[in-house]
């Protein structure tokens, strides 16, 4: 089965002042699939998402979306093309109600009837949001805010959704539930997803294709099924041993990416 490439990064380099965050990243996200990027803190995962959604302008390289060069375009324009970003730490509008937050997600749309239908569909994914529709988003628990952030993105009818650490601060049960919904959104709506996540165990099972990012460079790419079997992935990202990845060993093993 072949899948059309929806998003492609070609040798993207990005920096914050003197700090080089991405040192030539190339990756592909294929239509209808879930792709994930693994990597430690500071590897550049969030920067990849920011570069795609136009928040960070790359120094070099290009971002191709549906065959069109969208490098360094205006973020608002990029959203209107169906490319929507769910930021790390949720960033809901705390003083707006749940319903108003959802309507903000649909800001770029003028088809009111379809917006109303999408709102019902979002409430079907997360019934708690319907219960809390009139409440200020700032009063929701962390898990509910994450649900709202994902729902707000859905209200824009995304072709491609960028998800930055959806499990942050969530209980094991809630993390599992959020991932179940992410997978459902992908299967039922055909939404393509690019996912950044520290919970590698969840990410490598929910996603189809995976990339490992280190110090701003992609060091490994494969299907998630293949990545799950690699020794380095098991050791550094899945932490297969009960005593933690390193046991009582405090020094870090050098990663060789066999």
């Amino acid at each position, binding site marked *: 089965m072949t899948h059309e490439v929806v998003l492609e990064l070609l040798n993207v380099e990005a920096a914050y002042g003197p700090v080089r965050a991405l040192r030539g990243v190339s990756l592909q996200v294929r239509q209808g699939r879930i792709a994930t990027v693994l*990597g430690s803190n500071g590897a550049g995962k969030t920067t990849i998402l920011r570069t795609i959604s136009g928040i960070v302008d790359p120094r070099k390289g290009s971002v191709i979306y549906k065959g069109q060069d969208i490098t360094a375009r205006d973020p608002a324009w990029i959203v209107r093309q169906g490319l929507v970003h769910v930021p790390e730490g949720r960033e809901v509008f705390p003083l707006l109600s749940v319903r108003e937050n959802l309507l903000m997600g649909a800001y770029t749309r003028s088809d009111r009837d379809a917006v109303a239908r999408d709102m019902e569909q979002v409430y079907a994914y997360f019934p708690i949001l319907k219960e809390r529709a009139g409440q200020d988003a700032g009063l929701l628990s962390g898990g509910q805010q994450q649900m709202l952030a994902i729902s707000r993105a859905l209200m824009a009818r995304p072709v491609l959704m960028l998800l930055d650490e959806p499990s*942050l601060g969530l209980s094991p049960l809630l993390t599992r539930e959020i991932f179940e919904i992410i997978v459902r959104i992908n299967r039922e709506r055909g939404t393509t997803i690019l996912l950044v996540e520290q919970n590698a*165990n969840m990410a490598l*099972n929910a996603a189809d294709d995976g990339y490992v990012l280190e110090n701003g460079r992609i060091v490994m790419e494969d299907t998630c099924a293949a990545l799950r079997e690699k020794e380095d992935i098991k050791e*550094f990202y899945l932490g297969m041993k009960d005593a933690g990845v390193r046991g009582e060993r*405090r020094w870090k093993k050098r990663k060789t990416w066999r």
Partner: protein
Amino acid sequence: MSSKRDGKGGAGEVLLSVRNLGVVFGGLRAVDDVSFDVRRGEVFTLIGPNGAGKTTVFNLISRIYQPGSGEIRYQAEGGEVLLTAQPPHKVAALGIARTFQNIELFEHASVLRNLLIGHHTHRESHFWGELLFTPATRRAERRAREAVERIIDFLELQKYRDLMVSGLPYGVRKVVELGRALCARPDLLLLDEPSSGLNVEETDDMAFWIHDIVRELGITVLMVEHDMRLVSRVSDRVLALNQGQVLVSGTPTQVQASAAVVEAYLGSAEDVVSLRRPA
């Protein structure tokens, strides 16, 4: 990172005692008749679903909220104090430091500056000395800087020392916040989800740091955490909360085996295989 803090009361003595604590927010019983003791020298962990009241307990201890009922007692250096009768700004001086779930650092200051602020409760200089920058003040500044540098070494933050907090990745900010709390040289450290945003390898570092904080720095740790692997690895005792109430407490193994905890908190979290796309 000097010696163990002996002579400040023996290990095992109750350091923090929470009795029948309760608080109501607009009709919602966020914390409902919660009691527990934290003993000196242990790692005591609160677990529970999102919205169970864990962070609210932290906010009651650090006096951000006023409880509706119950009390908190704390063994300070000078003797027992009724913590719930203390003003919020006294809490740090009593030897209690904390980190926040959503990270509350000074975003537009360097890592070093943020850590120096953590050391503020221990400043030795005074207004006139500061104004004239006397030799005594200079010595005090140097000592403060040395104390902060020890924390930087301990948490391996050297390469971030002069960087602005706002540009740092989430997981690094998490560690900076821990550093700021340690700079206050607390007796009791409250950690709110120390591993969130960290990958498994970085979580291992956190586990080692927590070990060292307890064993080498002699600090007692009260923690809220979701990563059960970290919880079982470092905790002496665990208390599970649900909807503001105590569900069960005991050793990490006992709590994880409890049917109520599995139902309310862990669920089918281990089942990740069913997420995969059918071939």
